[in-house]
């Protein structure tokens, strides 16, 4: 009895929030409703006994994809008025296509007949004495190894695309030598001071960040220093001290 009640709760919230995704005017709200949809869908997966898929749905869709989506929404200026331009002229065509699709779906639904054996099939575990994750792994690495590897290639191509389309070498790019950045200690770049009560940093002579040099980790051909040029910071510190006095 309990699973059925839970099923209806999850399903109702899922459908309602799916409607809200389409209807809400604010795109951030729409994205957040989509997160709610995914959470409820993963609840349904849990009820069906597919715990691995449920976790995946939350981790990948709510976690990664939606955060990315929110980032994009925030960085892009979406002008709703501009988006809705031409809505009126496209409306009739859109309605026609939607009507055709709805009629098709209704025809499919009328012709639907469910194989009576399906109900039993879904209740049997895929493989005996195996958790979901184990069963999936066993399938992916044996029967579907080809598809799994092609998936890897697809992801690799996506990665190449992201790099080749966005990484530019501009003359004023600032790049650092990663090894030098990893090698340096906190005290080389940061300075800790205890500050007396009711006194500002300026009165203590000020402090500079970075501590020793501006371009300690920057690459040779990077924007800023000329090759071999090390800008020492002590002179500047001296100047500031004199100024505050």
């Amino acid at each position: 009895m309990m699973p059925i009640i839970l099923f209806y709760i999850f399903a109702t919230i899922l459908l309602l929030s799916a409607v809200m995704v389409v209807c809400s005017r604010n795109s951030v709200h729409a994205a957040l409703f989509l997160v709610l949809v995914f959470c409820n869908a993963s609840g349904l997966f849990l009820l069906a006994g597919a715990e691995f898929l449920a976790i995946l749905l939350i981790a990948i869709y709510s976690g990664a994809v939606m955060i990315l989506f929110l980032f994009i929404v925030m960085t892009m200026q979406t002008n709703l008025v501009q988006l809705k331009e031409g809505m009126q002229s496209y409306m009739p065509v859109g309605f026609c296509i939607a009507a055709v699709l709805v009629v098709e779906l209704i025809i499919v639904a009328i012709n639907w007949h469910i194989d009576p054996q399906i109900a039993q099939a879904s209740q049997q575990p895929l493989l005996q004495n195996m958790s979901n994750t184990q069963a999936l792994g066993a399938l992916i690495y044996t029967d579907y190894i080809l598809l799994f590897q092609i998936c890897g290639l697809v992801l690799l191509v996506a990665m190449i695309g992201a790099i080749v389309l966005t990484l530019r070498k501009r003359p004023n790019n600032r790049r650092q030598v990663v090894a030098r950045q990893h090698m340096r200690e906190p005290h080389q770049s940061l300075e800790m001071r205890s500050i007396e009560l009711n006194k500002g940093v300026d009165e203590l002579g000020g402090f500079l960040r970075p501590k020793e040099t501006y371009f300690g980790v920057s690459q040779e051909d990077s924007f800023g220093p000329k090759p071999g040029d090390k800008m020492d910071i002590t002179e500047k510190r001296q100047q500031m001290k004199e100024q505050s006095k």
Partner: protein
Amino acid sequence: MNWTLAIPEIVLSISGLIILLWGSFEKKGNAFFPCAILSIAAFVAVGFLTLTVQNGLGYHGLFINDEFSRYMKLLIIISGFLCIILSIDFNGKNNTNCFEFIALIVFSTVGAMIMVSSNNLMTLYMGLELSSLALYILCAIDRQSVFSAESGIKYFILGSVASGILLYGISMIYGFSGGMGYENIHHIIASDHALSAGFAIGLVFVLVGLCFKISAVPFHMWTPDVYQGAPTPVTTFLSTAPKFAAFALFLRLMVGPFGALSPQWQLLIEVIAVLSIIIGSVGAIAQTNIKRMMAYSSISHMGYALVGLAAATPDGVMGTLIYLTTYLFMNIGTFAVIAAMSRRGHIVENINDLAGLGKTDPGIATAMAIFMFSMAGVPPLAGFFGKFLVFKAALAADLYVLTIIGLLASAVGAFFYLRIIKIMFFDKAAEPLDKRSLSLSFISFSMGTITVIFLLFLSPMLEMGQIAARSLFH
């Protein structure tokens, strides 16, 4: 599990990875040229591997190798190979000579080969995604050009919608037949003759997705913009390898698992073919940009190639295969001429820029004239035989209306091909084009020679095509 069946794909993927590593670790100078040479070597090696690999089913029925897949894979490998040669000089001038270009072409070819060898709807989808994703990036690879970015975005958005529709169709087919493998679907259709509505809708959705890939008519809107905006080597690749792969899927799906339903889908294919031929031929007339004109021309060529499928006979499939082969040679040759079009270091793409080419550069003008005559279907050249074979098969299958419309439209199509010849040889000479580079001359002249002497190796081609077509109708 017989994993050696996919050796050509595996070798090509590994060489793609090697190219990537080489490019990333090459610090001095540009890695483009060595990577291009490496990929050319890989394409040659994979071509030989494809010829020698044995037939059969592998990877639990996900993957198939037969004479048909071998034929189509060879076409795809040849087009990848020629595109890389075409890009060697072009990309250097155009600032797109990054090694990723080569790697993406290689991975897209791998995806196209997997599409050809698919024996399961999931393999179909994965291959399609791999090949398309690389193509979206390739279209936008020229970052200094707004048109290139536009073509990348347009192709990406419309392509994703088409993939979505295809995936929806696949899920419908799976839901109503209970199987993803082609044999499985074939058995279910053969045992249950009444076509359920859901299954029919799934079939139509899959057709829509594939029609988008080959830019057949109701789904052709993206073609002119994408062809115009993408760098010319990418356009060349776009108009060959993925089209062949999508055609291979078309033929394999329609003849294999959905073969028993041929009375149902025949009319659909006929309508798509007729519309593609007409709109392609008529649309090309008004174009002033030669790449846009070639886009419409490729739409009409896809229509002609579909005529062979509409016949739904082994002869029709053979006609389609021969048509695609001739299309490969004359299309890549034409694009090599287009890539050679530049004036004072700037790319020019208008048809009028060809004016007087017959006087300023008779060699390449002759090659272009050969390709144009061949595309128009003038008899001794390659293009004629493809058209002849598909229409012969259509007549044998009693598709009279289709044949008559196709022949009339090819007369209309001849107009814009002949107009280019008129502009090149009879118009007042414009300023001469820049000196063409060696690789482009090589491709345009070798393709021109193949187009002229196609008659000589017609009979072995016919035999190969026949064997390939028969392997589909077991």
